[in-house]
C-alpha cells in the first residue's frame, strides 16, 4: 500500500498566495481532479507535488518519507506530464518512444506499434514528429502512460488538443491505472465522463479575486 500526502502546503508566486495550508492524503486507487480557474495554481500544485518546483512552505511525503530527501526513490515512482509534449520534432515517433522507454527504466520489451494502435495513431512509427498534427503529437507524448510503470501520475491538462476519441482512450487508461492500484492527479477544463469510478475533487480558489 502506498501513500502520498501533502502537509500544510503553501505556494506564493509574485506575492500572490496561490494556496495555503493545503492538506491532501491519497492512497492506492485514488483519482483526484484539481479544479480551479486559470491562474489559480493548478499547474503549480502539480509541479510542486512532482518536485519540479519548491513549495514556499509545507512538505510532501511518499510513504511517509520526505520526497526531497528521498528524491530518486520518489522519482522512480512518478510520471509527470506537463503542458508540453516533451517529444523531439526531429526524431521519428518510434525514436521518441525509445527514449521514453529508456527513461522510464522498465526492462520489459515493448511493442511500439501496439501502443500506437491503442492510442489511435497506428502505423506512424517511422514518421518524423514535426510532420504530424498537434493532436497526434499530444498522443505521442501520452504514450508515456502506456510505457511507464510508475505508480503515481501527475497529468497537467492531458486532454488538451485531443479529439473525443482520444479523450476517451486517455480516460480509459487513467481509470484502468487507478483500478490496478495506481494514483492519478490531473487537471482539466473539459467535462470528464467518469461515472463508474470514485473521483475526488479539490478546488483551488483564487485568493486574490
Amino acid at each position, binding site marked *: 500500500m502506498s501513500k502520498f500526502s501533502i502537509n500544510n502546503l503553501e505556494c506564493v508566486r509574485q506575492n500572490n498566495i496561490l494556496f495555503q495550508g493545503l492538506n491532501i492524503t491519497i492512497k492506492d486507487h485514488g483519482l483526484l481532479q484539481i479544479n480551479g480557474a486559470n491562474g489559480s495554481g493548478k499547474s503549480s500544485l502539480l509541479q510542486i507535488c*512532482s*518536485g*519540479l*518546483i*519548491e513549495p514556499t512552505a509545507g512538505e510532501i511525503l511518499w510513504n511517509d518519507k520526505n520526497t526531497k530527501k528521498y528524491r*530518486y526513490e520518489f*522519482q*522512480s515512482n*512518478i510520471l*509527470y506530464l*506537463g*503542458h*508540453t*509534449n*516533451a*517529444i*523531439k*520534432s*526531429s*526524431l521519428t515517433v518510434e*525514436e521518441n518512444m*525509445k*527514449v*521514453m522507454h*529508456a*527513461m522510464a*527504466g522498465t526492462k520489459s520489451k515493448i511493442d511500439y506499434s501496439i501502443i500506437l494502435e491503442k492510442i489511435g495513431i497506428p502505423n506512424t512509427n517511422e514518421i518524423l514528429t514535426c510532420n504530424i498534427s498537434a493532436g497526434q503529437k499530444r498522443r505521442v507524448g501520452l504514450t508515456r502512460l502506456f510505457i511507464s510503470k510508475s505508480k503515481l501520475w501527475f497529468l497537467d491538462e492531458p486532454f488538451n488538443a485531443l479529439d473525443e476519441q482520444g479523450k476517451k482512450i486517455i480516460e480509459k487508461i487513467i481509470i484502468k491505472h487507478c483500478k490496478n492500484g495506481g494514483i492519478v492527479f490531473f487537471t482539466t477544463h473539459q467535462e470528464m465522463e467518469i461515472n463508474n469510478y470514485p473521483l475526488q475533487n479539490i478546488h483551488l480558489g483564487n485568493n486574490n479575486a
Partner: protein
Amino acid sequence: MLEYINIFYVIFKRDLTLTFREKTDFINSLAFFIIIVLLFPLTFGSKSELLNTIIPGIIWISALLATCLSLETIFRSDFEDGSIEQLVLNRYPLILLVSAKILAHWITFGIPIIVISLTLGVILSLSNEIMMALFITLILGTPILSLLGSVMAVLTMGLHGSMLLSILILPLSMPVLIFSTIAIQNASLGLPIVAETYFLAGILILAITLAPIAAASALRIRLS
C-alpha cells in the same frame, strides 16, 4: 550499473541524432570558426613566419567564440519542448543525464573543431611542433569549454540572446586560453610544454568532476 550505462547511451545518442538532423546550428558555428580563422591570413598577408606566431592564438580565440555560439543550443530545445522536465523528474541521477548531453556536445563540436584546426594548420603551413602543441591543447581544452559552457548555458537559458552567455564564458575560460597559448609559444621556441599540458589536464579533471554537478543543480534552480 548496466542500466546507467544504457540511459547514458540513450541520451547521448538522442543528442547526436538531433544535432545531425538539425544541421543548421551545428554547421553555423563551425563555419563561423573557419571564417574567423581565415580572415587573419587575408588581412595580415601570408608570410609563414607571421602566421606561425599568430595563427595558433587565433585558432584558440575563434574556438572560444564558436563555443559560445554552439553552447546556446545545448539546452534550448529541451527547455522549449518540455523534455527538461522529463530529464529532471527521472529515476536516474540528473548528473548522469547532463553528462551525456555535455559529452554529445563535445563530440559534435569539440572534435570537429580539432579536425578543422589541424586542417587549417596544414593549409596555413604551420610548423610541426606548433601543430603538435595545438593538437594537445585543443584536445584537453575543448572539453573544458564544453563543460564550463554547459553550466553557463543552463544559467542563461531563456534570458534572450547569447550575449550574456559569451560574457560569462569568455572570462571563465581565460586560464585555458593562457595555458594553451603559452604551450604553443613554448613549442614554437622548441621548449618543452609538459607543465602547461599538466595544468590543462588538471583543469580538465576538475571540470569533469564539478561541471556536471553544477549544471545539474543549476537546472533544478532554473526550473523552480
